């Protein structure tokens, strides 16, 4: 093992623009020609050529993954032929939305967009935060390790939020190719079959979450052909922290201490790898970009960090994620500057080059700053919890990032230039397709059979085989579980957890509707916000105390139409968020989810995941989504409108999906949620289920899967526009609707709150739906339930 730095100088000052681009490609920096010209200028100003360490640091720091340059770009957008300029999607639609809501509702959002995760006030001394990340590229080429470290990474985000938040619950959302995809339909060598992806991803999440002792309480899975080559893996974790421990600052003189796992060659260049498209070659060449997880190492770090925070030793903390130490230390020293000592770093194996030590994404590492005199106290706590720590750097106030490796200076950059990534300019367009009438009128022989078909659809079937693999009860605080009802196997809208030391509870939910994004991304943006908020309200969250997160995934941002869909989706999402007063407190984006197959590039549809959390002010307000007793009344809140575009039902009809999407108005919907909440607080609501995929028919069946009662409903009573067909009444997916179970003695109150009676819960365990007296659907609940429960069993 040599005790000297291994690095080299890369001449760039004499290169022409095209040569700079070639260099970027050769080193896999993912930097554009324009970026490389700025890099050249930096070193012209410095009067020397860069080291390889410096180029790698700049590449990681400026990567899409770290700097979100597309969301901050100036976009020349054309909508239906009309031109407009979007001066940063993030500033215009996300930050502005949150700032407006923060002004309207002071004392709710405590911080947003400045830390690893945004914080919302839970009670007078605690705050709650939530962060969701994607780990799509790693999961495509190595599903188990990709998903494993995806969850491990977001847990560290929470440990590094504020001065160290305690992770209390996780959310996991996946988009896969259909499990029954034929092997011969895979149009590229080495692509992993969707079944292999699904099994690997679920096990990866299982083995990290369960070992960390964080309950995985909520999630969703979408299956579609467009996700065969680019599966999406979203991992989220919620945390709790004392409000006094949110604010943090690095000051000159403080030591930066790294804690946790050792550093190795695993996870090199993950940030830049995730900022490019996948190809068959990725399966061969980019394996080192995938990290290796060790949850027990992270558990030790978590115990250590939380103990150090409680002891008041931590001044600032962040996780080592994409870009490794270069990103963590770089961010912590981005204002003040400082010296980094790479030779202090314990390695997994000898012989790492300087750049590898600095940008390795080896897992389970955290970096915190402390006052120098607190080092012995910190060391004692680290020893107690068996976590390895070392002095990584010292903040000095010189505003330069100077990196030492043994006796050499391998990086010496002014912090302002390192963090001054040039702004991108991009072009986008979108044309809203016209609504076409269905080519074939939908008149099935049996509506019961249609319901059975929908209950067996991958979009709707029970996720139970997967849910049971996650420990959703550890920490002992899961009040509303992902499965409930008389036998603990009926679906819920989300989950509710208690918080140690607080009377307030936290509800968690998520929504994504990629099918809507294919034809109407603007409506998808609105509908995702609505569905997430609606689920939280249904469970008993105060509608005034809901915060949401936006996670975008898309294909090729350089394709104008795809970027146009993203712009429209973002606009729609912001529109609804403002109407509902639901601020975005954090978010993330993932680009380049496209794959070059034998038949050309395949992109995912623009996909938005809205996840959210809401405060439930009293345990008595918690409402589950399972029917509780025969004799109670079934009511609907929210009207049904025509249009089946994007619905699950549309998949089974020729052309129905080409008609318009259902319409709804946020203002009226919002008002109905507020009335519902008052009703739920009064104890009048026995159960409530949101209407989503599969519409009313599926929601009623799921309601009855509690095993406690049957359902009898007359559709004529349904609040709906006159142009609705039977298919739209039964299976339309108009947002804004809630299905309620109300005890007869509370019916007057429910009606006053806008609920419309559509039927009742019956002793006979049958699902019976009539229209003007004639039966449309009549089936034993047990028959329906076995179809729904068995759907994933052969595949997982």
């Amino acid at each position, binding site marked *: 093992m040599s005790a000297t730095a291994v690095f080299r100088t890369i001449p760039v000052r004499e290169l022409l623009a095209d040569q700079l681009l070639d260099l970027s490609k050769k080193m896999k920096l993912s930097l554009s020609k324009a970026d490389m010209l700025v890099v050249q200028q930096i070193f012209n100003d410095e009067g020397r050529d860069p080291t390889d360490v410096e180029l790698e640091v700049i590449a990681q720091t400026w990567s899409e993954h770290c700097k979100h340059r597309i969301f901050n770009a100036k976009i020349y957008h054309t909508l239906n032929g009309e031109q407009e300029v979007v001066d940063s999607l993030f500033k215009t639609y996300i930050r502005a939305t949150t700032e407006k809501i923060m002004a309207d509702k002071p004392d709710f959002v405590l911080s947003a967009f400045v830390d690893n995760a945004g914080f919302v006030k839970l009670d007078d001394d605690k705050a709650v935060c939530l962060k969701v990340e994607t780990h799509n590229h790693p999961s495509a080429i190595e599903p188990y390790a990709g998903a494993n470290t995806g969850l491990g990474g977001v847990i560290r985000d929470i440990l590094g939020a504020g001065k160290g938040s305690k992770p209390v619950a996780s959310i996991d959302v996946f988009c896969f190719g259909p499990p029954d995809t034929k092997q011969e339909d895979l149009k590229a060598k080495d692509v992993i079959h969707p079944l292999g992806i699904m099994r690997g991803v679920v096990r990866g999440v299982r083995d990290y979450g369960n070992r*960390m002792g964080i309950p995985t309480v909520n999630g969703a899975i979408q299956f579609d052909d467009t996700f065969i080559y680019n599966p999406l893996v979203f991992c989220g974790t919620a945390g709790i922290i004392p409000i006094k421990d949110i604010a943090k600052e690095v000051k000159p003189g403080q030591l930066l201490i790294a804690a946790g796992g050792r550093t190795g060659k695993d996870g090199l260049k993950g940030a830049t790898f995730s900022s490019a498209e996948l190809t068959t070659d990725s399966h061969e060449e980019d394996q080192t970009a995938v990290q290796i997880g060790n949850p027990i190492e992270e*558990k030790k770090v978590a115990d250590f960090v939380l103990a150090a925070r409680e002891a008041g030793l931590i001044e600032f903390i962040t996780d080592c994620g994409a870009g490794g130490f270069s990103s963590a230390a770089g961010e912590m020293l981005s204002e003040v500057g400082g010296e980094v000592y790479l030779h202090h770093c314990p390695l997994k194996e000898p012989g790492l080059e300087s750049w590898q030590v600095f940008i390795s994404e080896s897992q389970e590492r955290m970096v915190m700053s402390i006052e120098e005199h607190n080092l012995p106290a910190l060391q004692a706590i680290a020893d107690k919890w068996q976590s390895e720590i070392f002095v990584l750097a010292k903040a000095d106030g010189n505003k330069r990032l100077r990196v030492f490796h043994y006796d050499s200076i391998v990086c010496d950059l002014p912090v302002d230039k390192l963090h001054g990534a040039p702004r991108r300019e991009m072009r986008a367009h979108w044309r809203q397709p016209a609504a076409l009438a269905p080519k074939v009128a939908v008149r099935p022989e049996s509506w019961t059979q249609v319901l059975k078909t929908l209950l067996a659809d991958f979009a709707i079937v029970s996720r139970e085989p997967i849910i049971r693999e996650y420990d*959703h*009860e*550890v920490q002992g605080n899961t009040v509303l579980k992902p499965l*409930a009802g008389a036998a603990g196997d009926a679906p819920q809208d989300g989950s509710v957890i208690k918080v*140690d030391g607080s009377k307030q509870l936290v509800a968690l939910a998520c929504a994504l509707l990629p099918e809507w994004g294919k034809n109407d991304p603007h409506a998808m943006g609105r509908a995702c916000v609505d569905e997430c908020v609606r689920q939280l309200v249904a469970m008993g969250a105060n509608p005034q105390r809901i915060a949401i997160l936006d996670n975008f995934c898309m294909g090729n941002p350089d394709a104008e139409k795809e970027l146009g869909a993203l712009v429209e989706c973002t606009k729609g999402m912001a529109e609804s968020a403002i109407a509902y007063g639901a601020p975005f407190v954090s978010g993330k984006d993932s680009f380049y989810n496209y794959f070059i197959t034998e038949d050309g590039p395949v992109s995912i549809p623009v996909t938005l995941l809205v996840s959210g959390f809401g405060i439930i002010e009293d*345990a008595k307000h918690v409402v589950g989504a399972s029917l*509780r007793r025969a004799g109670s009344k079934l009511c609907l809140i929210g009207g049904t409108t025509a249009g089946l575009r994007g619905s699950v039902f549309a998949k089974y009809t020729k052309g129905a999906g080409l008609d318009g999407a259902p319409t709804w108005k946020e203002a009226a919907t919002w008002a109905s949620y507020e009335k519902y909440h008052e009703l739920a607080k009064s104890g009048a609501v026995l159960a409530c289920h949101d209407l989503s995929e599969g519409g009313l028919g599926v929601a009623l069946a799921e309601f009855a899967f509690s095993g406690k009662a049957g359902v009898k409903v007359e559709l004529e009573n349904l609040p709906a526009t006159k142009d609705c067909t039977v298919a739209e009444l039964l299976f339309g997916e108009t947002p804004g609707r809630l299905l309620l179970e109300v005890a007869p003695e509370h019916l007057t109150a429910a009606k006053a709150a806008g609920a419309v009676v559509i039927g009742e819960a019956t002793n006979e365990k049958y699902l019976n739906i009539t229209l003007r007296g004639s039966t449309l659907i009549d089936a034993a609940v047990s028959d329906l339930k076995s179809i729904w429960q068995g759907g994933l069993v052969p595949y997982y």
Partner: protein
Amino acid sequence: MPHALLIKFPGTNCDVETSRALEAAGFTAEVLPVSELAPEVLGKAQLVVFSGGFSYGDYVMSGRISQLITKHKLGDRLKQFVADGGYVLGICNGFQILTQLDLLPRGSLIHNTTGRFICRWVPLKKNSSTSPYLKLLPDNFELPVAHAEGRFVGETGDADKYVKDGHGALLYGKNVNGSSAQIAGLQDDTGRVFGLMPHPERFIGKDTHYDPDWNGAERGWGYYLFKGVAEALAA
């Protein structure tokens, strides 16, 4: 108040809720990291608890590394502690550790027959009228399980023998993981050492039951398990 000492290994993760449950039942609870484990710490405890989790990742065999480290640090002192009247409780991973520590009748906890991790609530049957841990519980009750390695196996005939002689103090009400003779929990001859796969600490109040209409008792069944030991120690 009786004092409970919960030994925490890297990867032990049910310590917070188990401490909370112990306190609810009238114990003072102390979580001790294994780095500070030494024979003398047993002196102040009446109950030693090994809680749930994945100690050292359970990569070799569940509970194996923890058993080696505990043996290395405590020698025979834990056996002496029991002989002197002390109580030892192992829950889930803690039960796995106990089976390796020679404190319970011989047998192992291996991978569920499904090969899967299972998180669900299960019906349970009491099979001991003397266990202090079970004395406040009815003949039939339920608790959640969450494990990948919960299938009890023993030498030929052992499991049936344990059910007959009462060492198999707790049984599943249905086949959950393939356990021989449906064994969910074991006790030693004194009844003071008890290990079980289900998680009593997750069902202390009614509010953590999956069915909001559950009304089987004043509190969750898990509470009565901890309360039973507290009462036995107070007696």
